[in-house]
């Protein structure tokens, strides 16, 4: 089979309508929205947990190296953890606002 025949074969296959990609009803859309919301919340929570762990590990290391710098490190850690937690809350709010 020549190259031109292969090309036409591929084009003819692509020209067919694929029922699997057809627009579904509201139930199908709702299912995918729920799955996407779950994945986005899971990603946000996981990445925030990693960030909190990294911040806490860095603070522990800094405190062990230089205990005299405790007030500054403690303040930065509290603010950092509070802001990281709020990032996961942003995702939750977006999910509640957009996914009904």
């Amino acid at each position, binding site marked *: 089979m020549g190259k031109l025949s292969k090309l036409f074969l591929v084009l003819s296959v692509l020209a067919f309508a694929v029922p699997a990609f057809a627009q579904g009803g509201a139930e199908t859309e709702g299912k995918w929205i729920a799955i996407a919301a779950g994945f986005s919340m899971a990603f946000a929570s996981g990445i925030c947990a990693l960030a909190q762990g990294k911040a*806490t590990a860095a*603070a*522990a290391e800094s*405190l*062990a190296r230089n*205990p005299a710098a*405790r*007030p*500054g*490190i*403690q*303040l930065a*850690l*509290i*603010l950092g*953890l*509070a*802001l990281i937690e*709020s990032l996961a*809350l942003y995702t*939750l*709010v977006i999910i*509640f*606002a957009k996914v009904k």
Partner: protein
Amino acid sequence: MPDQLQTEHNPAPSAVAERFYSGALLRIRRFMAVLAPLLVVAAWWKFGLRSAVGFAFGCAIAYVNFHWLNRVIVGFADRATGAATSQSGQGIVFRFLLRYLLMALGAYVILSVSPASLNGLLAGLFLPVAAIGCEAVYELYAALARGV
């Protein structure tokens, strides 16, 4: 002796700055205590009673959450520096996990009692972020106006 007197009455600029920035947590808590009632009244006026109640719940949960986070980190810092601490390790971990339980419980209660006030609850959970923003603006003002 005169140098010592001068130091006591006019502390060095770095000492002033250190004292100013060490009070940041206290100021953030005060900002939260001031912002919460103002925003609850604004939510009541703009969105109605249910949203205001949800917002008040969210603010209360956020305040307690921030307070416990602070206590957990103080205990953690005590452990890391080897200082004497009144909190046990189990207590620190328990309190850290209890914060999430409290937030989930508050959300469940709001959802089961009045789903309409859920938006208010979610907005109220951002009270510490607003307070931290106010503190950042205040520190910027202090740095520019007073040179702290």
